[in-house]
């Protein structure tokens, strides 16, 4: 959100006809310039941006610093490629244009796109850099296109001469399919030293890069918030359902193997953590009966990851043993799942004192906690409900 006046120096020399950036160097540069103008004007409405060309017949100022984005984009039309870029003159003209900015409170910044070879030597560039620093003008350089020997070093020297408190940056864009604008988006040139512009950058990244947005579901929350939200919610619901199913299955399997102790502790933990699960356990079981053995094993494996209580560790090893003995056991589990109603669990829960002793042993559980007491009461109720159901079944 820094108040800034920026002059962008565009390279429109003959070297920009080259096609090593798609569609051509000049096009890539224009896109980058458009993006930068947008970002600057968005980050602070009072920011002004001006544009000048370095090549052609000579340095020519296309538009003096203005906050009117339309004017800036319009002047980028119909630019011709030709001539040679005069870097030193361009920087001096840019400095002059900034000096005569209307709002003297704006910080001065020059952004230079260097796509052609530099014919000046390091000393001259350093002198220019010092002059810029003296007048507190920040400089950003985008080094792309031609990379003859010495060009990166010369530009680095220029940046070090200008740099004051890291306000000046240089970006080297190697040739390739990456557009210059994409590379620039993540650099401080765009984000303005880390502040502002980043939301614009994110939106631009989504637009420019198409499907490669890097968001969770390939959908940009900015573009389509409802869809993104719906996708996220359904993913979480599925995950929760699978976890509960896995826990239930794990509990059943553990009972088959060990005894009631492990499973009840797991049970208590499950009841503790997942109050609604016992109610919906019936539904889960029916679903499980329909699944294949492989899915059941997967659920068991997942439940091994999801243990919470201390004694659950014992159940863990039992679990892994259980799955180790696999096929027969899996089949047995499946059958048990089909047969059993809530009877097993309810028998355990019936023993109120047993449950409370388990709860006492669990770390972090205070039996006097009102929520725990409510839970115990509800479990007792359920036990009473299940009793007649059991009688009915048997």
């Amino acid at each position: 959100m820094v108040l800034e006046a920026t002059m962008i120096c565009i390279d429109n020399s003959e070297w920009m006809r080259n096609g090593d950036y798609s569609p051509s160097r000049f096009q890539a540069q224009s896109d980058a310039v458009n993006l930068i103008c947008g970002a600057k004007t968005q980050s602070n409405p009072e920011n002004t941006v001006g544009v000048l060309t370095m090549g052609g017949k000579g340095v020519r100022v296309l538009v003096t610093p203005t906050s009117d984005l339309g004017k800036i984009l319009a002047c980028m039309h119909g630019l011709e490629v030709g001539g040679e870029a005069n870097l030193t003159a361009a920087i001096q003209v840019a400095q002059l244009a900034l000096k005569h900015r209307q709002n003297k409170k704006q910080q001065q910044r020059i952004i230079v796109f260097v796509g052609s070879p530099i014919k000046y030597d390091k000393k001259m560039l350093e002198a220019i850099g010092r002059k810029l620093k003296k007048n507190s003008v920040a400089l950003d350089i985008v080094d792309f296109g031609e990379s003859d020997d010495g060009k990166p070093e010369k530009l680095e020297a220029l940046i070090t001469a200008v740099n004051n408190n890291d306000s000046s940056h240089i970006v080297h864009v190697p040739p390739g399919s990456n557009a210059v604008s994409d590379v620039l988006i993540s650099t401080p040139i765009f984000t303005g030293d880390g502040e502002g512009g980043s939301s614009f950058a994110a939106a631009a990244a989504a637009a420019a890069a198409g499907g490669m947005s890097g968001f969770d579901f390939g959908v940009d929350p900015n573009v389509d918030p409802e869809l993104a939200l719906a996708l996220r919610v359904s993913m979480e619901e599925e995950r929760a359902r699978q976890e509960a199913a896995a826990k239930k299955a794990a509990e059943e399997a553990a009972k088959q193997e060990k005894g009631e102790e492990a499973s009840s502790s797991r049970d208590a933990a499950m009841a503790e953590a997942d109050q609604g699960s016992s109610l919906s356990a019936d539904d889960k079981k029916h679903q499980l009966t329909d699944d294949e053995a492989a899915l059941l094993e997967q659920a068991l494996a997942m439940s091994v990851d999801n243990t919470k209580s201390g004694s659950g560790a014992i159940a863990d090893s039992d679990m892994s043993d259980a799955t180790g003995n696999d096929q027969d056991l899996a089949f047995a589990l499946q059958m048990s799942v089909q047969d059993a109603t809530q009877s097993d669990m309810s028998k355990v829960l019936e023993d109120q004192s047993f449950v409370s002793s388990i709860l006492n042993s669990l770390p972090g559980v205070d039996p006097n906690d009102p929520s725990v007491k409510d839970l115990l009461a509800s479990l007792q109720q359920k036990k009473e409900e299940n009793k007649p159901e059991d009688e009915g079944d048997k």
Partner: protein
Amino acid sequence: MASVASSAIQRGQVDLVDFVDWSSVECLNQSSTHSLANALKQGYRDDDGLHLASDADEQLLIYIPFMQVVKLHSVAIKGPEEEGPRTVKLFSNKEHMGFSNVNDYPPSDSVVLSSENLKGKPVILKYVKFQNVRSLTIFIEDNQGGNDISIVQKIALFGTTVDTTNMKDLKKIEEH
């Protein structure tokens, strides 16, 4: 009155530091660690450990606007023997000068500082040129030893205000 010559204020003159408009004060080519406040602000400027230093080369361009119109009588610039300023040009009421146009206008006054001045003795200016000062630009062209960096420990401006009567002055007269 103070016995030491360096801190004596001319009779009737006031230290103008109270009338400086701090929000618009600017200094070109200052080093980021040693900034203008060290030399100008009350408290900081008297601490000899804090100073204003130049950055890329030895020149400094200081722009000081005032909150009201003042008459400038004298200025005291303190600095070290070698790196302290030598040639100082003062411009009255010129906004936003740059290093490129310092030589375009004749200065309102131009001073060459001696080592006595550098110890704090105020330099009396051409009072007639500074009758109606809204802003002051101080251009430090070079330093005593010809070094790459100029160092200034204190800049104090003395004068009177034009519009309002200064209460401090009133009290002084009453004492007499």
